[in-house]
């Protein structure tokens, strides 16, 4: 589905992604984990065209997409959500999702087609799916944090992607919101047959969703495989889970 070879990116002298090769298989729910600063978000930005890699290639369904701008990559069916809230704050919840549909249907240069009601049924369907149908007319910027995250998900889903990249979909959520979000993501991915690639901090989320896990550390892949195998991998335990335990111990 997604094949990445020899990806390399540095900022100044700092190597953020160091020669990463990786393959995402169709239908899998793949988590990328790693301590803070491991390069997870940079990796996403490289794959989705937000950043240009210094070396290496990204291929989506056999097509080389390295260096293409995001708006072209997304049209191929590779959508993403963001770790930090990334919505249109001064537009209504409805409009936030509607715009993504307008773009998907390539209507954004229709100057004389009124937007009111455009793609209405599908917009409402998506809002209902993520549980935002009652907030449709509210300003997106005034929503509660957890709901903005759901909106973010609805925007990404509106592009009708085949592969969905979620950057820390539950970051900043309360435990109950997190639980709800996991349930939702799993449900949607199964219902739509989505291939999922997500980064996550919260191990309950990771083990609750993923059927394969890749561990990133200092921009390198140090392990990849089934959740149980990764969990028991000694290098991972030392590098990643160990740091987590140390942090927990300190706290």
């Amino acid at each position, binding site marked *: 589905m997604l094949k990445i070879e020899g990806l390399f990116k540095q900022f100044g002298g700092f190597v953020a992604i160091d020669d990463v090769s990786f393959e995402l298989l169709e239908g899998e729910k793949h988590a990328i984990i790693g301590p803070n600063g491991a390069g997870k978000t940079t990796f996403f930005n490289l794959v*989705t065209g*937000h950043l240009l890699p210094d070396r290496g290639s990204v291929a989506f369904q056999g097509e080389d997409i390295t260096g293409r*701008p*995001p*708006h*072209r990559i*997304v*049209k191929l069916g590779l*959508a*993403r959500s*963001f770790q930090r809230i*990334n*919505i*249109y*704050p*001064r*537009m*209504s919840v409805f*409009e936030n999702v*509607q*715009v*993504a549909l*307008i*773009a*998907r249907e390539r*209507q*954004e*240069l*229709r*100057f*004389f*087609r*009124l*937007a*009111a*009601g*455009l793609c209405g049924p599908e917009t409402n369907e998506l809002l209902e799916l993520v549980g935002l149908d009652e907030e449709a007319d509210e300003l997106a910027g005034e929503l509660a944090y957890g709901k903005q995250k759901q909106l973010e998900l609805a*925007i990404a889903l*509106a*592009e009708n992607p085949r592969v969905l990249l979620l950057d820390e979909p539950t970051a900043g959520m309360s435990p109950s919101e997190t639980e709800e979000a996991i349930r939702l993501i799993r449900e949607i991915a199964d219902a739509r047959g989505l291939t999922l690639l997500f980064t996550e901090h919260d191990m309950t989320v990771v083990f609750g969703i993923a059927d394969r896990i890749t561990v990133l550390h200092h921009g390198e892949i140090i392990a990849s495989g089934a959740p149980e195998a990764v969990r028991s991998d000694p290098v991972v335990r030392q590098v990643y889970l160990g740091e987590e335990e140390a942090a927990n111990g300190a706290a």
Partner: protein
Amino acid sequence: MTGRMTRPVLAACLTVLVLLALVPLLESNYLIDLFNEIMIYALFALSLNVIIGYSGNVSFGHAAYFAIGGYTMAILLTTYEWPLLPAFAAAVAFSFACSAVVAYFCTRLTDIYFAMLTLAFSMLVWGVAFKWRLMTGGDDGFVGVDVPAFIAERVPFYYFSLVVIATAVAVLWVICHSAFGRALLAVRENPVRAGFVGINTRLMRWWAFVVAGTFAGIAGALFAMVHRGMYTESAFWPESATVLIMTLLGGMYSFFGPAIGAASLFLLERLTNEYTEYWPLVLGTILLAILMFLPEGLAGLAQAVRRQILRGR
């Protein structure tokens, strides 16, 4: 700026249109000229707001396209004796073409760099108007525009102007509330996200610039006719600043805000001049007050008051 044209808004528009149509009945040349000028600047400010309010960029050089429309109209009607319709069409087409070229360069940049480049291009246009004496009359201005006989009188011209402007505003309204307008708002709100839902943000900003320049050209063409002349002041940067102030005063987050701003500024200026010669001082104070207390302008204030009343019920 959301959704469809609500019934109260439509009613308000029709009322304003009827009132404007009744102005000549007052038989005051002063008022007819004043309202004609207000209408022209309202269209000018509304056009600028496509760049500011809808695409989220500030232009410091919007007068350029007003002047291009105006000079083209003046020169074609007078020097080349073209009939009205072809001259008007050419003036609009030339504004379109010029803004298309400038937009190509300006939309490569954002923020202050975008603003400065629009200013630079407008100074270029001013330079041409100033130096090309043979064609534009230079700093003496282009004096004595030949306006076709059937609209040469004050009242017929007023109605001509009203019809053209009302049509232009209606078309602009549709464009701003179209699928294009909605996508443009997304670009303003969050260009990164807009890119990630598949919108080519630079192309959208290019179109916003071109739409704005074209409609400014229409306003400029009417300006040249109503004044029977075109002057370099219309291309100079303070003119760009004036229309920017109108837009901010009226409110950039509302479609009709800039038109309200244009009317308010004109009326305020006339009123102030009755009592004092210190209009710039008053203008400065107004500007300060908007920036400090009314960042969304008069239209934003009206909306806030309406929300308060609705909440109180």
